């Protein structure tokens, strides 16, 4: 940095800019929180991202403007990242057969044919 502050930005001209090295320390931006946003009443809260905050109160205040400053939002949750429990990604195969379990699906229960056959039989009896 040159000795003089010749910035074209009047805001910057007013600052006393540092000359030397500058570092931040580990964890200086605290821990992380996960943010969940509800677009409108009746909808689920959905995960929209993360942020750094020292505690829940601050996390909520930060969440509103970082994740809720555009679009619809009626409510938000913040949860400490470390409080979230998830499956291991390599265990994805646990879920792989779920779509095969058709006994849970409405689509496989088709009795219309059977009813028609029954009605035919009754008519002819």
């Amino acid at each position, binding site marked *: 940095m040159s000795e003089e502050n010749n910035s074209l930005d009047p805001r910057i001209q007013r600052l006393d800019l540092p000359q030397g090295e500058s*570092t931040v320390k580990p*964890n200086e931006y605290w821990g*992380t929180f996960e943010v969940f946003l509800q677009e409108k009443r009746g909808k689920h809260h959905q995960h929209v991202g993360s942020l750094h905050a020292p505690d829940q109160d601050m996390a909520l205040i930060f969440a509103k403007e970082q994740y809720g400053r555009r679009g619809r939002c009626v409510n938000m949750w913040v949860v400490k990242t470390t409080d979230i429990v998830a499956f291991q990604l390599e265990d994805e195969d646990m879920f792989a057969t779920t779509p095969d379990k058709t006994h849970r699906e409405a689509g496989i229960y088709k009795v219309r044919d059977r009813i028609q056959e029954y009605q035919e039989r009754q008519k002819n009896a």
Partner: protein
Amino acid sequence: MYGGGYIHQEESTKKQPEAVVEDPAKLAEFQARIDRGEKIEPHDWMPTMYRKQLIRMIEQHAHSEIIGSLPEGTWITRAPNFKRKMALIAKVQDEIGHGHLLYTACETLGKPREQMINDLLSGKSKYSNVFNYPAVTWADVTVIGFLIDAAAIVNQLANSKGSYGPYCRALERICAEEAFHLKQGHDAFVFLATGTQQQRDMLQAAVNRWYKPIIHFFGPSDKESVHSEQLMRWKVKMASNDDMRNQFFDMYVPKVREVGIDFPDPNLKKDPETGKWSFSDPDWDEFYEVIKGNGPCNAERLAVRKWAEETGLWVRQALATPYTKTTVPLA
């Protein structure tokens, strides 16, 4: 939105990019997942080079947003009416927001935000060169808001189709906000272009100043690079620098010319046969000089960032809790 196609490599990694030998079975599985169009998520196995390159790229993108807020910030207190004042504050704010989203995405790869900031402040990690040029007049803000954002959008839209889940999610959100940036930039640009002679002159002068940095923005030609090919297979890099630059010219040269403004380069022409734009030599030596830290504003940009970190220290300290451990954001 400010990634830029050019990803700076530190000297040490340039020499031996493939130093780590990966498990071929895992590598094949990883590649197959990408080829199937599936995303990679933070806790997946990934090649060391994939992780390194993504960190480098996302981090540079994040730094570019944070530093990129400064040239436009130059005019934040001087925007000439309510509409421009509100838009400019909101836009500069969005850039900080984008930087935030990108730092978060990058943290999922294992590099804490504090370390990224330190690498920015020490000059170890880079940001887009384009932000080391001054915004001399109000017209410069309109050129940045329109053309630099447009250039960045070309790059970011491509990257949002990449393979790393958190980066794609961040980019999707960023791209949605960019629609506003580009519109407001174009609006301000057109108002000057269709305004008084004095306004038009201001604008043309600003376009002249930014022409070279815009060409530099996409980086030197990288078609021949082996490194590039690997990154494209991994969907880290989605298009070559030349292709993105060409796409930019295709889309935006007409929009500049339709209001009677032009880029200061008689050789800027499209070959109707090949569809390729040619342009005068943009002085790549200058490009490398600016990366090295010798651009017109490098020193000021970093000094301002240091000021912000140093001045904010007491605030962060006051909120610190002694038992804070480093946590990695989820996704």
